[in-house]
């Protein structure tokens, strides 16, 4: 992610905000689209393109769950574990997936294919227990077997051109 690319992305929206600080979050989201996480260079590019200090940009980024300051897998599997999902077996789904991926709880598979995360309510409790790949459609209700199928399908599928997490 270069500063120039970011500037081009931001140019058409600059007029929508009275303070360029508002561009930081869109810029971070966009910058994350490339590698799927925000490496220091991406963050530095955001700082430059928006005109705020790197420390400030990092501070903002670190506040949000879906901006990753550490590398994550090619796809992030977000399993909701909040109350409605828990009541309908989200813990079992999570454990099943961790098992299937060979992970000890949350983490990233050795091959860098998947990160498995527990997340808080993703607004789809009607589909509990549910999960979400990156910021994609909330999928559910799931049985453990559905979840592993999903992973298999994902393994086949190519990584998206740009990430939206």
């Amino acid at each position, binding site marked *: 992610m270069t500063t120039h690319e970011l500037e081009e992305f931001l140019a058409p929206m600059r007029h929508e905000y009275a303070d360029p600080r*508002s561009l930081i979050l869109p810029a971070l989201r966009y910058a994350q689209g490339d590698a799927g996480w925000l490496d220091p260079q991406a963050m530095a590019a955001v700082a430059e393109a928006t005109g705020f200090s790197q420390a400030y940009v990092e501070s903002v980024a670190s506040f949000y769950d879906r901006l990753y300051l550490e590398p994550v897998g090619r796809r992030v599997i977000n399993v909701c574990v909040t109350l409605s999902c828990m009541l309908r077996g989200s813990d079992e789904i999570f454990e099943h997936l961790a098992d299937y991926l060979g992970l000890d709880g949350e983490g990233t598979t050795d091959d860098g294919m998947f990160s498995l995360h527990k997340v808080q309510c993703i607004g789809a409790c009607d589909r509990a227990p549910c999960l979400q790949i990156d910021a994609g459609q909330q999928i559910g209700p799931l049985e453990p077997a559905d979840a592993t199928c999903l992973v298999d399908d994902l393994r086949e599928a190519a990584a998206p051109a740009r990430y939206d997490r």
Partner: protein
Amino acid sequence: MPVLNSVFRHREFGDHLTSLVEYERAGGYLGLQGTLAMSPDDALYAFHRSGLRGRGGAGFPMGRKASFLPKDTGKPTYIVCNADESEPGTFKDREIIEHNPFQLIEGMTIAGYAVGCERAYIYIRGEYGVQGEVLAAAITEAREAGRLGPDALGPGRPFDITLYRGAGAYICGEETALLESLEGKRGQPRLKPPFPAVAGLYGCPTLINNVETLAALPPIMHRGPDWYAAMGNEKSPGTKLFSVSGHVLKPGNFEIVLGETTLRELIYDLAGGLREGREVKAVWPGGSSVPVIGRESLDVPLDYETLNGVGTFLGSGGCIVMDDSGCIVRASWRLAQFYRHESCGKCTPCREGTGWLAKILGRMVHGEGRGEEDIRMLESLFGRISGRTLCPLADGAVMPVQSALNLFRDEFVRVASEGSPRPEPMMETPVG
């Protein structure tokens, strides 16, 4: 099944209204048409007369809030739609956005006309990636059709909407934290006063409303505020979307006329009831941040005042149901973990207290409780957190746990000394 007299056109028409043409065919933009024929002040008065209350959680009268915005400040006035919908158990805004985005856009345009706003924002939670796409497409379509843009409110009278995407933080649903986030800062609540109506986005007068609140405006302006006010009762007029989830057979969103439907009807008639042989044990009727109530309160009609009467809140309408297979301590622990994770960390009682609550409850659940001592500790912690923080998140963290302890004290005492094995979850596929 189409709902008669629904406030939300997609429900009335039983259809997805995701293109402008379909929306207009379903009566879309008649509300704006009517609004533009009156003066902004009359429009404000109509909001007021409808009795519409904020659907984001606090239930503050929408028209009154809009009338707080100072005029002629020399600064722009902004409208911000709160589409952060992160309250556990709540997914009603998602439905409106997915199936009926134009009604929200029209509602915002109407509000824009009334308060003299030219640029509005929709702050949507980052996790709503797909829903964000739907909204973005709808905004573009509306703009291309001239429904947004330089002449949206009539020739030379601009109004436009910017979609702003969050990135994962429940606290950004709190209105001032949302504004901070929208200003490119860490999403931490501001000290109030000043209130957003006076000094909101970029220090300018700002009207913040929930998706459901703003989306209710088109039918109100189309059919008239009296039509709306005639539904429900005096203090809780109109309809409300309830999201029902948890141990019910048919989870989903249900629109009910306030004050007419009881909690029991919502759970058993609308949400399909429970599994064979199961009984309701606990209900969080307005999202996870409200006090939990038990089986004995099932027959209350759902409206703001009546729910207050049984010690809880209507909140966001995210109704979470747990049957008697569930463990109340485990459920409380899970919620405490949520609040610990979501505390923004700005103020001491919440930053430290939510973590402490979660740790104690976690120990109890895992059989490492210290009996009565833990119960006393919990009780004293409640008082040290609630009412003492910068924003209401911490109160929301305490209320469900405190009420659970009050209601199910014996179970807490037992778990505090014996622990709580994980119960079998409900794995039934929802009906319908």
